[in-house]
């Protein structure tokens, strides 16, 4: 007979995002939405479901295909006291509107000496693995994280998704909220079971800039974000069967970056593998390794990165699946580390 558990309620990341936004919109009239197909359709990735029905077209605004205009408009509205939550449907589309994001949204507070706030959230989908090709599959973590003036968060599960979204909307600074398409729970992009977790009904925040230890261990630290966390967890389970104790760190935020948690972990384990679905060079994996090295944390072996090769994302599954980070690649990286220790 199955053991009776306390009442729980799981959500997919898509539902968690919609719930967080709804709760903030009920509390604060200033919060409103702009984006493509976020109205009646509920968002192509399910993250605004129910909002149009509850709040109507005044606060849930379907836009034309005019990113420069409506993201620029979000900057203007936010500077004037509103709290826009806007969607850039695919992060890959940043090219058409990036000035509004990195030159204005991210810099206006600084240019104004801190006297103007830009409290907006830009949510955007990332990730591949389902053959959507080079212009619809990227994880441009480093592109946003590198440029000063915007916070960047990316949840790996529904609990963090709701909490980070609430925190992002309440934050007086601009926040980029990146959600990985394959973790949304949309079904047509596959299902990642570990992303569907218990989510409290009440309002709560997950602090921006704080990483989480998703799994404790002592032999090696795996650092990841979004899909990288799940590859890390799968690798951890396999390695455990080989008697290896793995610690998995979910960064949750890229800006601010919780270097402390990473350093503490690597001090404990002495080994570091960083996983990122973004391109290998000049990215998050380099940032983590540089941070650990600069801090002089002693390591038993050279750190390893498991990231996307520096190529446009290919369409055909044979190539795309080969290129993607995976639990298998993490396990190979660990084996390589152990080789150097002999």
């Amino acid at each position, binding site marked *: 007979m199955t053991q009776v558990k306390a009442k729980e309620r799981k959500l997919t990341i898509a539902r968690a995002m919609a719930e967080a936004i709804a709760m903030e919109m009920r509390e604060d009239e200033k919060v409103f939405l702009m984006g493509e197909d976020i109205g009646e359709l509920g968002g192509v990735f399910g993250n605004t479901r129910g909002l149009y029905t509850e709040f109507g077209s005044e606060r849930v605004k*379907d836009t034309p295909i005019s990113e420069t205009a409506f993201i620029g408009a979000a900057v203007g509205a936010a500077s004037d006291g509103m709290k826009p939550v806007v969607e850039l449907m695919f992060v890959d589309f940043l090219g058409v509107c990036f000035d509004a994001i990195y030159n204005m949204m991210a810099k206006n507070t600084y240019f104004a000496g801190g006297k103007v706030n830009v409290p907006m959230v830009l949510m955007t989908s990332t990730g591949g*693995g*389902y053959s959507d*090709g080079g212009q619809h599959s990227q994880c441009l973590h480093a592109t946003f994280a590198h440029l000063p003036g915007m916070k960047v968060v990316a949840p790996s599960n529904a609990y963090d998704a709701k909490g980070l979204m609430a925190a992002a909307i309440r934050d007086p600074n601009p926040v980029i909220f990146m959600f990985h398409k394959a973790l949304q729970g949309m079904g047509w992009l596959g299902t990642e079971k570990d992303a569907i977790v218990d989510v409290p009904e009440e309002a709560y925040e997950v602090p921006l800039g704080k990483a989480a230890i998703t799994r404790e261990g002592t032999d090696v630290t795996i650092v990841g974000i979004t899909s990288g966390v799940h590859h890390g967890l799968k690798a951890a389970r396999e390695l455990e069967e080989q008697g290896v104790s793995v610690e998995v760190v979910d960064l949750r935020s890229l800006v601010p970056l919780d270097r402390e948690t990473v350093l503490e972990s690597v001090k404990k384990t002495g080994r570091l593998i960083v996983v990122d679905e973004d391109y290998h060079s000049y990215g998050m994996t380099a940032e983590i390794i540089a941070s650990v090295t600069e801090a002089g944390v002693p390591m038993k072996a050279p750190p390893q990165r498991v990231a996307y090769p520096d190529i446009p994302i290919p369409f055909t599954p*044979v190539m795309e699946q080969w290129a993607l980070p995976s639990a298998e690649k993490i396990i190979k990286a660990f084996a390589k580390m152990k080789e150097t220790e002999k």
Partner: protein
Amino acid sequence: MAGFAQDNLSSHDRKGDITMTPTQEQEIWMYQNMVTSRFFEEAIEKIYMEGKTPAFNMAKGPIPGEMHLSNGQEPCAVGVCAHLNKDDIIVSTHRPHHVAIAKGVDLNKMTAEIFGKKNGLSGGRGGHMHIFDANVNFSCSGIIGESVGVAAGAALSRKMQGKPGVAIAYLGEGAANQGAFHEALNLASVWKLPVVFVIEDNAWGISVSKQASTAVKHNSDRAAAYSMPGVHIPDNDPIQIFEKAGEAIERARNGEGPTLIEIETSRLAGHFMGDAEAYRPAGEKEHLVEIDPIPAFKKRLHDRYRWTDEQDEALRAQAREIVDAAIQFARDSAYPAPEEALEKVFV
């Protein structure tokens, strides 16, 4: 048939007034490409769904990823491409198949590309949204609105090199609200480039209607803002498109600069395969099937040229053969080796 005699005046017969009327040969060419295109889309649609039932998982099956079919929009391709040769340039969109076929893209290699095979136009790297065939100067992009700048640039290149050729940019009506559209039209006009912008207005940008998103009733009216002719074609009619596109292309070839053409066409399929299309008003889809341009064209050929059922069957059989051969070529082709993903980043 008095109307017929007056209609049938070609551009050569009327001085100082360019009127483009298709010859019988051109009409049959257009019909043939429409039929081939439609058979192709229907075949792809079926194969696309392989492995994707009962649940639609985009990653599964012999054709994974997204798929944007052009059923109903064939006239927009054939009416324009009837005036083009292989040296003319086309930059198309995420919904490219009908245009690619009419432009003369290698259908076997295009199909292999859609299947992600080694023999595909890009060795599997591009897929359905990134069809590139340099032999016929055809390319497309998945980012809304990005075709226009590229087409303007190709036109600029020909002008600078003194080489013949006109560039055509295809875009949807949703793209006319994207900044790149306005910049490219302005630039093409200022530099008097031999480019024609063709808007395929199918009234929907995924779930958002044109009325809900566009400040003008007709995008062709926007041409005035960029000092170029704006042509509105209210019917999904290959003949009207042939005539107006012919005029625009002739203007471009004569160094008279760009034109904006807007065609009210019909998207018979969803925006992308798997699109539940709940946003369409009731009855809209049924009405679209009634105004399918292909049966209408067959009737026109019958009325004007006494096109017989035998001729029609022969044409369809030939189209069927071409499509079947392309599918078979794709199925028979091998997948590339995974490491080939690292190649062709740079040359």
